[in-house]
Each structure stands twice: as C-alpha cells, then as structure tokens.
C-alpha cells in the first residue's frame, strides 16, 4: 500500500492508523531507505502502554541500520481513538527518548546502542493521505544475547561473562547519567561484531530520569516488560527511593539476565509456581495484600530457584554466580545489591562491584580457555 512513497514534510497531517507497519521502501529524510521489517508477524502494542514502535532495517551508502518507527496506530488503540491524545503521547515518548539518547551521546556511553539519526517524516500514501512518522535510527547489531543460551564449554562461558560484563558497564554508564533503563531483557542486549564482539544496551523507551524530568510511564508500577518485572513491582510497590525503585529494578533485570543466559529460566518464571493465593494479579494470582506479608514466601521460593539453577551454571563459577544472582535479584528491594555497598552511606546498590566480579569471572574463564 505504501511502497515507494514520497516524503514531503510540508503536507498537512491526515491520519492513517496502519502506516507504521507498511513502510518498506520508504526513504527517510536522512537518506536511509527502509528495506525490510525487523520482525516478522504481527507486532502489537506492549502491555504497559506507550511502548508503540515498529522496527525496520535501513540501508544507506552500503551500511545497514535499525530504525525504530513510532507507531501512531498502536498509540491510538491505547487511547481509545483519541487522535490528539495519541499524537501527544507519541510525540512526548519520541521526544523523551531522543533527550535520553542525546545525554548518552554527549557522555559517549559506549555500552549504549549508538544513535545515527532521528527525525520525523510525513509520509504521503497513494491515496494522497499524509501521516507524520517519528523515528530514530540506531546502529545495527548482528544479533541479541538470546543466541547465547545453550550448554556451553568454557570458551562460551568466557564469551557470555564478557557480554554480561559489558551490559553491567552499560547499566553503570546510564546510572552515572541519572538514567535507569527499566527494560533490560535478552532482546534489548544487542551483540555487535565489528572490532571483536561486544554487547550494548538498546531501547531507552521505558527509561526513567532522576533529574526531575519524568515520562508518562514513570507513574506505572511496571514500566518495562511484565515478564521481567521485579516482584515488588508486580505487587504494586512504589519504592520511595530512586535507588531502590529504579536502579534496583535495573539490577534485578541484570541478575535475571545473568541467570537467563546460563539456564534459560528467570526467577519470575519460577515464581509462577507459587500458590495462586499469594501471587499478584500481574502473575495471574489473587493476592491483594501488602508486599511485606508475602515477601518472605517469595524469598523462600527464590532460595528454591537458586538451588535448582545451580547445576546448570558452570561448575567452576557456580557458587559465585549463585551468590551474585541472589544479591542482584533479592526479593527484598531494600537489600538488593552488593551487601558491602548497601552498608555504605547512601546505601548504593554497588553496580561497580558487580562489574568487577563479572570482569574477574570473565578473565578467569579466559585463562581456563587458554589452559584447556
């Protein structure tokens, strides 16, 4: 329907709700040509609202990029047909993410996916209708970290630990800029192959800032993906401290990612085996009481989880990895983090210490590789 459309940013706005899904062949103002959709099949709006985008692969001068096109149709569905509200929300989201990416670019955060361009195009369809399309162009990754999950030898252990170390550095870089990612999950950890493999964090669409500026999703109990949300968020807790509420959430995601790349099973999946009566609605349960009254049960289930995943962790590092996952995913969000760091003034989560521990384990694995 919209193949080979012309771009004319001067035309008046007329809304086409399906346009974001039909942009293959479109040339963006920056000269990038959208060559294919990044994902096959139907991609609908996320459950948390406001997270409406469609991914494309783009080409320019023989280089490839990933383009995130903001999806007005999805936003409209979320806003019950209110076009103006949907437009406003989408514009705010686009602007918010661009601001965050500007901060990242200015600070040269090398573990965050780099932005190559951004803007807004007005697409004219064959019917003569015109629709504004905000977009952001990112460097294109070879894959994401989900490919890492399989039984591995020590060479792959070294690779995985190195990638996790990169992710932890990315988290630290964001936290250093008073930004919390809020949606760290396997599909948002991209692997790049140029100049040796490295991992970077992608998608700041659900991130939060601690500089007084807030996004619409900041008021939600769960800003990121429901499936990876820390338990306190699933139970509707809004921790008063930024450190516990946002940085603690990132750390939980990092711990879950660490468990995922070795075992394929996150704590949240295990929590689905808790009795329905004490699971929150977000986990298809019926619990309506306080988190304090169930956190002890979750801690017990978490202990069970750690015991069950241990045999799937590399023998030589299993003890330490269990301790790390235990500290990163502690269901008690006020204790989550490195215990020594938590005892310091301001009770930081100690991301720097986890970085050191992951770096040491990665180096140890590389030494074992050479010995082997």
């Amino acid at each position: 329907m919209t193949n080979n459309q012309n771009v004319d940013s001067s035309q008046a706005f007329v809304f086409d709700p399906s346009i974001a899904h039909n942009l293959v062949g479109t040339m963006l103002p920056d000269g990038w040509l959208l060559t294919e959709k990044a994902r096959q099949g139907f991609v609908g709006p996320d459950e948390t609202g406001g997270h409406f985008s469609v991914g494309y692969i783009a080409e320019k001068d023989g280089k490839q990029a990933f383009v995130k096109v903001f999806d007005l149709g999805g936003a409209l569905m979320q806003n019950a047909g209110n076009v103006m509200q949907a437009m406003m929300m989408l514009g705010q989201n686009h602007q918010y993410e661009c601001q965050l990416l500007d901060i990242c670019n200015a600070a040269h955060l090398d573990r965050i996916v780099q932005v190559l361009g951004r803007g807004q195009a007005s697409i004219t369809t064959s019917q003569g209708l015109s629709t504004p399309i905000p977009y952001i162009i990112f460097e294109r990754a070879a894959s994401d970290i989900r490919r890492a999950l399989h039984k591995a030898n020590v060479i792959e252990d070294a690779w995985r630990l190195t990638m996790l170390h990169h992710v932890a550095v990315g988290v630290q870089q964001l936290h250093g800029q008073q930004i919390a990612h809020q949606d760290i999950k396997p599909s948002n950890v991209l692997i790049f192959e140029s100049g040796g493999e490295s991992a970077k964090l992608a998608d700041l669409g659900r991130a939060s800032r601690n500089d007084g500026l807030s996004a619409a999703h900041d008021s939600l109990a769960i800003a990121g993906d429901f499936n990876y949300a820390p338990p306190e968020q699933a139970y509707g807790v809004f921790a008063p401290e930024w450190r516990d509420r946002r940085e603690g959430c990132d750390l939980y995601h990092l711990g879950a990612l660490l468990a995922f790349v070795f075992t394929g099973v996150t704590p949240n999946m295990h929590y689905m085996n808790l009795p329905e009566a004490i699971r929150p609605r977000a986990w298809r349960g019926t619990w309506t009481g306080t988190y304090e009254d169930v956190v002890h049960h979750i801690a017990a289930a978490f202990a069970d989880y750690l015991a069950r995943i241990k045999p799937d962790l590399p023998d030589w590092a299993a003890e330490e990895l269990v301790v790390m996952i235990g500290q990163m995913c502690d269901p008690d969000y006020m204790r989550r983090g490195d215990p020594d760091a938590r005892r310091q003034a301001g009770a930081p989560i100690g991301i720097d210490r986890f970085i050191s521990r992951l770096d040491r384990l990665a180096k140890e694995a590389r030494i074992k590789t050479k010995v082997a």
Partner: protein
Amino acid sequence: MTAYNEKSKRRVVPRWRSAAVAASSKEFRPLRNRAAPSPARDNDLLRRLAEFKEVPNLGRAAEVLATAVMLGKEEHARVAATFIRQNESQAPRILLAAAQSIIDGRRPPSVSVHIEKDAKAVAHLRVLLKARPKSAILWVELARHQAALGETEKAQKSMQIALGLAPDHRWVLRSANRLLLHAGNEEAAHRLLVKHPRTPHDPWLMSAELASALIAHKEPKFIRQAKDMLRHRSLHASHLSELAAAVATIELETGAGKNARKLLRQALIDPTENALAQIEWADRESHDGLALEPIVRRMPDAYEATCWVKYNDGQIEDALTAAQEWLQDEPFANRPVGMVCYLAAFLDDFDLIIKTAREALERDSEQVLHRNNLIYALLSKGQILRAPDDGELYKLIDFLKRRIADKDSDVSHPLADVGLLLYRIGRFQEGRKMYEISMSVAEKRGNYLGRALAATMNSREAILFQTAWAKEALNEAHKAAKRVVSPGITFYLRKLDALIGAPDKVSKILSPKNAAKWGTPEPFRNAVKDLRIVHTESGPELWVPEHLMKR
C-alpha cells in the same frame, strides 16, 4: 483400649501447617485489599512467538516458554517446548524440565517451600537457608520439621530467628505461638501475643491470644476488643471465623450458652477448617445440630472436623483416614496421634497403632499417651508375649507399674492394660479382676467413658478366651456404654455381639479388613440425622422431624 479422651476440651489454637498450604489458606489473606498491576496481555506472547519463528534458537524458545507460563497459556508454547526437547543436548536441565512439563501438559508442584518429611526436609531446608539465610518462611519451615522430629528446643531456636526476621508477620507469629504451646510453654505463648502491637487489630492473632490465655489459665486480654470486632463485622466473615469460635468457647465455659451458639453460627458463615473443628467440638457437647457435614464435605482440608463428623456418624474407617490426614497435616502434634491410635483400636488394626505410636515416641519418648497406646497394641497383637526375652515386655511392665504407683494420675488405663496382660498370659480371673478395678477407679473419677472402654475390653478378652463370664461381661459392657455417647464403643460392641455368637470366626470378625461391616448402618444414619436439639427460652428441647414421628 488405647487412651484418648474423646470428651477432652478443645481450644482454637492456631493450626501450624506447611508454608505452602498456609499460603493458600484463609489465614494468609489480607484484612484489606490494595490495588496492584493487572496481568500482562497476550500480545507479548504473540510477539515472542513471531520472533521465535523468525529465528528459532533456545533463547527465544525459553522466552516463549516464560511468557506463556506467565500468561497461563502454556498450550501456545508447545512449539517452543518441542524445539527445546529436540535440542536437549544443548538445553540447560532446568529449561528442559520446564519444556517437558509443557509437552506433558502438567503444572510443576508449588515451590513455596519444600514439603518432604522430616530429616530429609531439614537437610534440604538448611541448603536453602545457606543461600537465603534471611528468609523467615524457611526458618519457620525448619522449626516445623524439627518439631516433627521431636527436636523442640532446636525448633524454638529456629522460630526465634524467624520472629527476628519477620516480627510482625501474622503467620510467623501464630506459628511461634503454636510451637510454644506444643513445647508446653503456655505462658510464653500467651505473652508473645499479649505484648504484640498487631494483636488488638488482627482477629487471627486475637483468637490465638484468647485460646492461649485459656490454656495458660490467664485472663484473656483482648476479649472486649474481640467481642467488639465480632459485633461490628467490619471484616470479611472468613477473618472472623476463628475469633468467633474462640469467643464462643469462652462463653460456653462461662455458661453463656446462648451467646456461644450465636457466635458459633457467626463462625460458620465462612469457616476455616480449624474453626469448623471447634464448632464440631462444641456441637458434640451441646448437640445443637449445626448440620456440619455438608460444610465439611466442601472443605477438603478440614481433616480434624471430618474425622469427628465421620466418627460421630459411626464411620470409623473414614474417620481414621481423616485422622491420618490430620496427622500428616500437623506431624508434630500429639492429638492426631492419639486419634489415629484410638480409631485404629476400634478396627483392631494393631500394626497401625504400633507404627504410629513408635513414630510419635521417637519425637517425644516421655509422652504417656503414646506409650499407653503402644502397650495396648503390643499386648493385643500378642507377639511380644511370644518373644519375652527381648526385654521390651519387661520395660512395658515396669512402665505400667510406675504409672499405677502415680497417685496423681488416672490409673484406670494402666490397670486395664494389666488386666489385658493377665488375660493374655492365661490368668483370666485375675485379668477380669484387674479390669473391674479399672472400671471402679474410672467410675470414682467420673470417667464414664474410661469405664465403658474397660468394660468393653474385659468383654472382648472374656469372649476371646471363652470364659464362663463372657456373656455377663458383654452385658456389663453394653450397660456401661449406655451411660456415654461413644460411636467407637457402639461400633466395637457390634463386633463383640457377633463374636460371642461365632467365636470360631474371630479372625474374620476382628479383622480390620472387615470393619465396614460393623459401621453404623446407612439407613439408620439417614433416619436420625435430622434429629436436633433446639434451644428455647425454657431450655433445650429435642426436636424430632415429622418423618421420624411417623415411624
């Protein structure tokens, strides 16, 4: 017969079940509801399935599995689960197990806590606690298993740690209260709740405080607040059930029967199984006819109440099954042990009594009830008399001697056991005499149930050994049984009536396998189930329904 006083008092002490079971119980529900996020939407699963189909790998398959499980749509993850299964040499074991569950269409068991029994559970819990030493639930679970192993002091230390970690947690507080009561530290059990700031606002803690006060012979501190809370009914009926039963118990004992009956009916609106057992106990005393059976049938975990309802109905085998479940539910407690042995005795299932009593004595070797039950079963089975050299017989005799010499206790039971021993070694006259002394002692203490039990056992022995006084002894037993309401004795006398007519069929008549034959006949149960005691202004009256009047 085994020692168990079916007329003993009952208090609404907190149940102490495994954490996984407690988590699904009414006791665990919040008093007030809070808002929480809604569940995720199906789009997540659709997106992940599309991603998996685009580039199938284990990581994407694992995400499909996790999302499907989170959404409760496991059937949509079969394609991913099958992929994991096909790549099993590369898949982590825990992921493979999750995939297999989905392929098999079964849910993994609840993971709240480990429920295996006793020593294995203790070892496993210690492993978990090493990883998560600050999990109060794990400490409570450890305490429960330690208590079940008879390690009461260790259990109390574990519970102390749990209380330190979760000092305001209702279930932890109630479990600690129950453990202290189990350990015989009634004052500390009461003090724990009296001093706790949550108690005056929480009906569950309040009911435990009232029960503990009665056991510790203290004045209940929160009786006024409890009555106010019950009157205002500002909380859901399920939260008030045990409190209403606890206050009703106090009212019954202070003679305020009318109030008590009102409260029992309030407790019945949405009862816990513990409240139901208490209501059953109160109903057994007052014969109010609260029609508990349909409610009991709806509550699969109401083991104690089911046991008593079945027992009162003369269904001894079913009552025993429920008592065994009750024991499994509270493996540290003495009352279900006593009930299992008591009921097994009516079925002449001596092996079960021996096994149950020995296990209980491993936990608590000083427990007289369990020792008495063991002696009765060993003597009744007779094996011990055929191998007297192993020393156990002499230890038992020594125990009986010490018990009889203890002037402060009810000696009717050890005397009856001596009577049984004398019968079994061929000194029938002396055995009869000893049973008669036992009956007389019980009579003097007003223990008519004990008297009837001794008479019944004397009758059994007289028939088994075909003594001249067998018929007379059976008549005496029937006479004694008329003075008490004991479905168990009624059941057993039916067996003895058959036995005296056919002494050659002893192995058949007294076999546990044939017990069903001696239960209360179904037509009779149905005919009398509508009988009620109605409490009127002028006092209690027996209400007989019209269909029974016509008979």
